[in-house]
């Protein structure tokens, strides 16, 4: 293994991503947590670039680092948030969960750490967006259309649920 | 028996009553009672016709019915395998059980006059119960048997839980869970058999299981057969009941309304014995032989355990409940003997106890209605106010303790005759039970009818006219069987021969 540029890039991105995740777990202020996670999201986008998925990387930046983070922050702002977010109870549950996570990670890790996949050269990086577009609008047209319904559902649903309830009363007043 | 679907009509005839009842207004008490009673008559009539024609030499096979019903999987690939037919049929044994059921149902319908509320629901459930009981004995395949078996469960649950005495719901639940578990175990056995042989027909199963090189879907090892037989023993042991699976039955006998106990003790318990004989002996003859000693021991334990516990009960219903346990021990003794005398004795006991228990519980209903207690300590001297009731009660007790000339003696005698041939020492121990039966029954019955009256039963009336009918019919049948047992033994001959052939006796 050589310290190629790609490797260095991966290492640093991965480090940032993991640190972002760890900070999410350990910070006390809700807003800080979200901000920490933004770092993670962005570095994941970087990793996509390393994996010749420029389009996905772009979407990642737009949606995660942008849209989702923003609505989450909105969510935090809209609701009364006590800054500290440390559960008082559930110590046993946490321990159990921790052991579970360890076990799971261990089991998966021994599955992947020497996974032997012969690498084949790809041309994913060539016209990545075009490739995606072609596939999406030919092969995956049905899920694509279904996704549109899904988004519509999510849209209407969110409106219905989040709409202020007392509108009617307000009108009456 | 000359028309088609004779058996189906017989089995499902009470449904007609349910149909009529559902259109009757709730408040028409006497009309409902009348319809409920009348609805039991077609089955009675048809079963008697079948019985007398069979006695006259007619062939029962002419009654068999078979309609294709369920086919699991693809019939083109599987052929006849995994198909369940709707098939009813009779042999001597089941014919007798059907007659018993029909008779007791009619009598219990008369006894239901003591029911105080919601007659409509009561009679609908009652008739449904009768359908289940008749079906159980007419079913020619295991699945159908099981279906009818479960159909008896539900109405009984409600009949106990709604029309019973103080702790009725408790008793109903007890009944449900025990019998539910029993039928669950039974279902496993049935399904294993069905899944491995591809058929549920009893005759076909008997043939397949006893063939040297059976054609099976999957192998059945000897151990597995043994396991299935033991499971059957447990399943029917709950019903019978066999010690220590009996405690539900005591509760039911005490809490259920007398008319239902008549059917319960008279017919429902007998399904256990019927199942053991038909399926246990029929399908697993070899395994049954190796379990014979266990059965006989269980029988003796039942006999003595029931007798000794009946001896110290204060409630007459409890006495009768434990007496039922004790008497079912005789069935087991007969089965454990595994010879003609024993098996015939067991079957006789099934019928005989059916009649006797029905009689006794009916009488309990009669006097309970008048004195509002069945506690021996609060009774006494009842023969003064109700001499006829007391007389019949005594007659019932005599029949129950195996007085010759009554059906109880014939069955008890044959069962012991059988067991003494195979296991004389065990039989001798069991014979203590005969003494104990006399002891506890006399203690209880004399405690109620003889001696000084515990309180003033002034103004109580003796049996009314309609109450005579069940009593006289039952006593008549008990004496008939006791004096002329061939009424039972002759129809049984061919069934017994088949069984003996199976167990190589």
């Amino acid at each position, binding site marked *: 293994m050589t310290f190629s540029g790609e490797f260095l890039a991966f290492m640093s991105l991965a480090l940032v991503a993991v640190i972002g995740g760890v900070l999410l777990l350990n910070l006390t202020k809700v807003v800080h947590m979200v901000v920490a996670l933004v770092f993670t999201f962005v570095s994941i986008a970087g990793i996509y670039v390393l994996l010749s998925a420029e389009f996905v990387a772009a979407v990642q930046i737009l949606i995660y680092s942008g849209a989702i983070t923003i609505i989450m922050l909105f969510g935090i702002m809209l609701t009364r948030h006590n800054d500290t977010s440390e559960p008082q109870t559930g110590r046993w549950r946490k321990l159990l969960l921790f052991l579970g996570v360890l076990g799971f990670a261990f089991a998966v890790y021994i599955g992947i750490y020497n996974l032997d996949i012969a690498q084949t050269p790809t041309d994913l990086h060539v016209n990545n967006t075009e490739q995606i577009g072609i596939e999406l609008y030919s092969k995956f047209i*049905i899920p694509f259309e279904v996704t549109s319904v899904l988004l519509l559902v999510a849209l*209407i649903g969110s409106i219905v649920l989040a709409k202020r309830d007392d509108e009617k009363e307000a009108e009456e007043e | 028996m000359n028309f088609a679907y004779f058996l189906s009509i017989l089995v499902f005839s009470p449904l007609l009553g349910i149909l009529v009842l559902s259109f009757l207004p709730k408040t028409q008490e006497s009309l409902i009672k009348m319809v409920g009673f009348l609805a039991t008559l077609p089955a009675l009539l048809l079963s008697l016709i079948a019985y007398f024609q069979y006695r006259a030499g007619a062939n029962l096979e002419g009654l068999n019915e078979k309609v294709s019903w369920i086919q699991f999987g693809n019939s083109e690939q599987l052929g006849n395998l995994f198909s369940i037919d709707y098939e009813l049929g009779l042999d001597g044994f089941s014919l007798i059980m059907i007659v018993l059921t029909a008779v007791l149902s009619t009598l219990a319908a008369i006894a239901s006059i003591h029911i105080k509320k919601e007659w409509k629901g009561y009679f609908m459930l009652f008739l449904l119960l009768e359908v289940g009981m008749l079906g159980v004995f007419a079913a020619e395949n295991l699945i159908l048997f099981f279906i009818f078996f479960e159909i008896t469960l539900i109405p009984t649950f409600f009949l106990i839980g709604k029309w019973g005495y103080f702790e009725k719901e408790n008793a109903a639940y007890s009944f449900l869970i025990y019998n539910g578990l029993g039928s669950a175990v039974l279902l496993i056995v049935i399904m294993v058999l069905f899944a491995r042989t591809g058929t549920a027909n009893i005759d076909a199963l008997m043939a397949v299981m006893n063939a040297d090189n059976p054609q099976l879907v999957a192998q059945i090892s000897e151990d597995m057969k043994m396991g299935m037989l033991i499971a059957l023993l447990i399943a029917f042991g709950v019903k019978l009941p066999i010690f220590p699976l009996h405690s539900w039955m005591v509760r039911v006998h005490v809490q259920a309304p007398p008319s239902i106990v008549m059917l319960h003790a008279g017919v429902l318990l007998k399904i256990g014995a019927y199942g053991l004989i038909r399926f246990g002996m029929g399908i697993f003859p070899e395994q049954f032989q190796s379990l014979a000693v266990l059965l006989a021991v269980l029988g003796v334990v039942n006999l003595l355990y029931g007798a000794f516990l009946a001896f110290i009960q204060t409630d007459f219903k409890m006495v009768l409940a434990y007496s039922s346990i004790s008497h079912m021990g005789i069935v087991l003794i007969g089965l454990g003997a595994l010879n003609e005398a024993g098996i015939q004795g067991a079957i006789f006991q099934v019928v005989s106890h059916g009649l006797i228990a029905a009689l006794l519980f009916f009488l309990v209903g009669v006097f309970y209605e008048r004195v509002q207690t069945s506690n021996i300590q609060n009774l006494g001297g009842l023969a003064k106010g109700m001499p006829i009731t007391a007389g019949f009660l005594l007659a019932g007790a005599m029949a129950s303790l195996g007085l010759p000339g009554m059906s109880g003696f014939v069955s008890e005698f044959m069962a012991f005759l059988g067991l003494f041939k195979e296991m004389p020492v065990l039989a001798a121990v069991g014979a203590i039970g005969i003494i104990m039966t006399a002891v506890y029954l006399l203690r209880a019955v004399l405690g109620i009818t003889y001696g000084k009256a515990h309180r003033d039963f002034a103004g109580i009336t003796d049996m009314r006219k309609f109450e005579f009918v069940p009593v006289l019919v039952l006593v008549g049948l008990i004496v008939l069987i006791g004096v002329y047992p061939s009424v039972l033994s002759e129809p049984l001959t061919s069934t017994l021969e088949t069984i003996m052939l199976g167990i190589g006796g």
Partner: protein
Amino acid sequence: MDLETLLSYEWSIMAPEFIILGVATALSLLDLFMPKSQSRKILGWLGFAGILAALVSLLGLVGHGTESILLDTFRLDSFAKAFKLLLLLGAAMVMLIAISYEPNDGLEEFRGEFFYLFMAGLLGAMIMSSSGDLITLFVGLELLSISSYILAGMRKRNIQSNESAMKYVINGSIATAITLFGMSYVYGLTGTTNLKAMAGFLTSVFDEQHIYLLGLAFFMIVVGLSFKLATAPFHMWAPDVYQGAPTPVTAFLSVVSKTAGFVLLVRILFSIFANTPSGDAQGLPMILSLQDYIAFLAGATMIIGNLIALRQRNIKRLFAYSSIAQAGYLLVVIATMSLFMFDTLWFYLGAYLFMNLGAFAIIQYVTHKSGSEDISEFAGLYRRAPFLAIAMAIFLLSLAGIPGTAGFIGKLNIFMGALVPQEGHYVLVSIMIATTVVSYFYYFGVMVQMFFRPAADTQKVKLPAALTAVISISIVATILFGVAPNMAFDFLQGNFNQFTDFFQ
């Protein structure tokens, strides 16, 4: 891919989906333009008509051969047809229940939304059952899930409804993530999302490392999907969500959504893992070597569902546990993988559909009438409404698996499947039967209330027509399939040819 190729596909096989989509869209537009004051019930009837139309068109497709569009992203095979039939039937009945749903708080102004979100969820379920591609399956699953999250929270002024939706969305998302994590490995080791291609590729996988990783993926997918089925270990959300959600939604979750979950599980497991070698000496496929794990989950589910149900006083919660237990029975079918598996699964889900929806129709009526969901609301129901009480008794008996009802035949099927193999699943069958007996306790507990207890009020009831229809259909079906199950089996055998095209 040009238009011509696109048009060369036989799009008519998607007619049911298009109808649902079209009606959902139409409903949303109508809702938008209808005056606020007008009752939205009419939309419900429209939706119901749409579902019926879809049902009719699906029945028209029953004789149609196996067909796929766009590399299996949509696939119409016997399996899809058979189960879509159930989904549509269930949805139609839930729709009827929903039309009669008149809660005290929160839903009235969103009734229109309720109907078309519901249709969207149904669309998701239908997509789930007729696709041969992971991506489509995933999207269909999410469409169903997200619609359900929203539906569960529809009574937004009701705190329990909010909470129910919250629990649902969080647990659902975690489950989705776990499933996807598993799927990602499957994708990685095959390089495709097409199930058929995967299956073809996997038969030649012999690298132990790959097999191990596929095994892990198997577990992740199973556990992730167990959320939709509400089986162990992902069952615990169900009681809370069922309790809090509006009753029609609960009915929807417990029947339609669960059916869709089973469809998806079967589709994935038997497409992918039936062809994956397990790497042991006998060369068993992976699914067989891992069936004990599914059996374990099935056993745990049955035990948990039935035992905890014993303690419930809230009728909807009780039915949640009951539906967990029922899902456990269904999981037995999958764990035993007998030759009758598809038939059994279909029949039991069908029977379950009728008995459970019938029961929920009654539950909705009884609980919203009194506003309380305590089991004692059923007290004396026989006095007040004999028809309702007897109907409820029939459904309960069927759920308990008493002969004469469809539930019994379904259980019979399950037992047979479990016992046919040489090394029969005796333990599993024993657990199933024992827990069934335990279930008598709570099913009969409801009956005790209805028949034995005195009524609190003796007021006579007037049942809405829609509910009457649901209950009547359910009674007829429950009894009919219990007495003459061959009607269903013949239909199955005659039209779906044992689902042999599932693997083609």
